[in-house]
């Protein structure tokens, strides 16, 4: 495979006696939507946290666009083009939807030691923010306080914020968490629309979504990769069926 945009080599992380990430290898070429699945406790969020920089790995390497980012702090990874959405909604709840996304835009608009001027009327911030909201279909809620929108809209806002920084790659941690069937379908369509323009690492539980969207799938159990490859391969892999898909008839 030509040099992957994201290359994870022998990544490892322990918490006391628990091995959360065990010798994980993943390679995601540019433009691919790569899904990471696994039962609860498999270490999927821990993996994403290490990729985004919220956690620092104990061992192994992470390469992004040719650069070794294993020890690069989270805020700097964002500037390298790696954006993340959170499994547990982590927004600026006391600010409006537009404010939320505008902040994400602002983070990538140079330094913020600007003490004059009204940031809320700054077209350089507001216009790209509205564009990101359009992309996820939330433009009509721009001026509502984030705490007042629905859970489904929170998940879309999470996505919009990740997109606002014009990243090269998205790390999406269970974007469908807690969504009903209609909202899930909407999210799948939104993600489908993002597919070629962004490289995506998608952690998800929703198997329908995963098999509808993924180019390739990695299966994580107890922190280890037990299988990785095209969706059909994964679907028919015995180990995977046993460990995970066996209990799940939604395939």
């Amino acid at each position: 495979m030509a040099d992957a945009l994201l290359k994870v080599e022998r990544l490892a992380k322990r918490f006391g006696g628990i091995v959360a990430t065990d010798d994980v290898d993943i390679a995601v070429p540019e433009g691919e939507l790569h899904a990471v699945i696994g039962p609860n406790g498999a270490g999927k969020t821990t993996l994403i946290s290490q990729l985004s920089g919220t956690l620092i790995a104990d061992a192994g390497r992470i390469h992004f666009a040719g650069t070794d980012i294993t020890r690069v702090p989270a805020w700097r990874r964002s500037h390298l083009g790696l954006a993340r959405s959170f499994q547990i909604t982590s927004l600026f709840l006391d600010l409006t939807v537009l404010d939320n996304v505008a902040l994400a835009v602002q983070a990538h608009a140079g330094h913020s030691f600007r003490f004059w001027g009204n940031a809320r009327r700054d077209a350089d911030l507001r216009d790209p923010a509205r564009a990101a909201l359009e992309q996820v279909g939330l433009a009509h809620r721009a001026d509502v306080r984030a705490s007042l929108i629905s859970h489904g809209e929170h998940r879309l806002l999470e996505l919009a914020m990740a997109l606002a920084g014009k990243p090269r790659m998205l790390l999406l941690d269970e974007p469908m968490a807690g969504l009903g069937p209609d909202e899930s379908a909407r999210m799948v369509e939104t993600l489908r629309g993002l597919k070629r323009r962004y490289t995506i690492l998608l952690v998800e539980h929703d198997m329908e979504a995963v098999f509808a969207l993924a180019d390739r799938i990695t299966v994580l159990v107890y922190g280890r990769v037990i299988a990785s490859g095209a969706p059909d391969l994964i679907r028919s892999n015995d180990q995977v069926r046993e460990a995970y898909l066996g209990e799940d008839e939604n395939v």
Partner: protein
Amino acid sequence: MTPAFTLRNVVIAALVLALALLPLYVALTGDRFMLTLFTRIVIMAMAAVSLNLILGYAGMMSFGHAAYLGIGGYTTAILCFEGVTSGFVQWPAALATSALFALVVGALSLRTRGVYFIMITLAFAQMAYYLASGMARYGGDDGLSLDTRSQFAGLLKLSDKTTFYYVCLVLLFGSIALIWRLTNSRFGMVLQGVRSNEARMRAIGFPTFRYKLAAFVIAGTMCGLAGALIANHTDFVSPSMMFWTRSGDLIVMVVLGGMGTLFGPVFGALALLFLEQFLPAVISAAVRPFDAADAAKAGEYWQIVLGPLLLVIVLFARGGIDGLLRSFSDLLRRSKRPGHG
């Protein structure tokens, strides 16, 4: 669209007007005590405004803010003692020493979170307190008097109480205007984001430390100026200005008035200092019908009421005075438009 003529805005406008016209009232009634009291209120309001920037807008619980009052005050007093009476030297010096202290304290403290941050800022303030009480040359525990107020080459006579009051008032309004611009700017948005969800701020790409430090230094410097003012007001500085309970008083002012609002700190300073002055009288009046003999004495224990009052405010009126005004404004607006809400 919130209309401009809300109850809250009217109250604020009335307050600004009242503050501006106070010396007129004093001239008419000869009540010089009011001038002294309100000068103090205005200076404390400025200190509270500076704390509000980091506490109210950025969510940084600094328990050592009174230190800057002391640092600004002592710089002014020490220079005066050593023969440098020009305000043109003293005040910039006060700003510089405060800024430097804030820079050092901030650089060391801002890596900690929550209660650790509270404790470390408190520790540095206590260090400043002990430093001041350890300086024999400058009075130690007894404090240091200022022989003369800051001189401004005849342009401003600070020894004239009315002039001094207006200087303080202008500086207060200037500070509020500065905070207003600051908090609406990109810098201000970063601070609000940090208060709302710092982890997310870092995730989206903000190196939050440097912005917090900048806000910390700005707040400390502004408070240092308030310190120079208070030294002039009381013609005296003492280490007790910086004891940790004074930082507590400042926090009370900010919260009481309404955190993260422009005029909250002014409401808070007014309320606290007013309570200090008038609650005793209120209590005495309340007790008198029951026990005329001890009524006056009862007033002395006004903090027995203030204490639980703080607790009640924390539990039930978290938005402070500004919050209450907004609630009343909303109530009025809605009751005037039947069928709405």
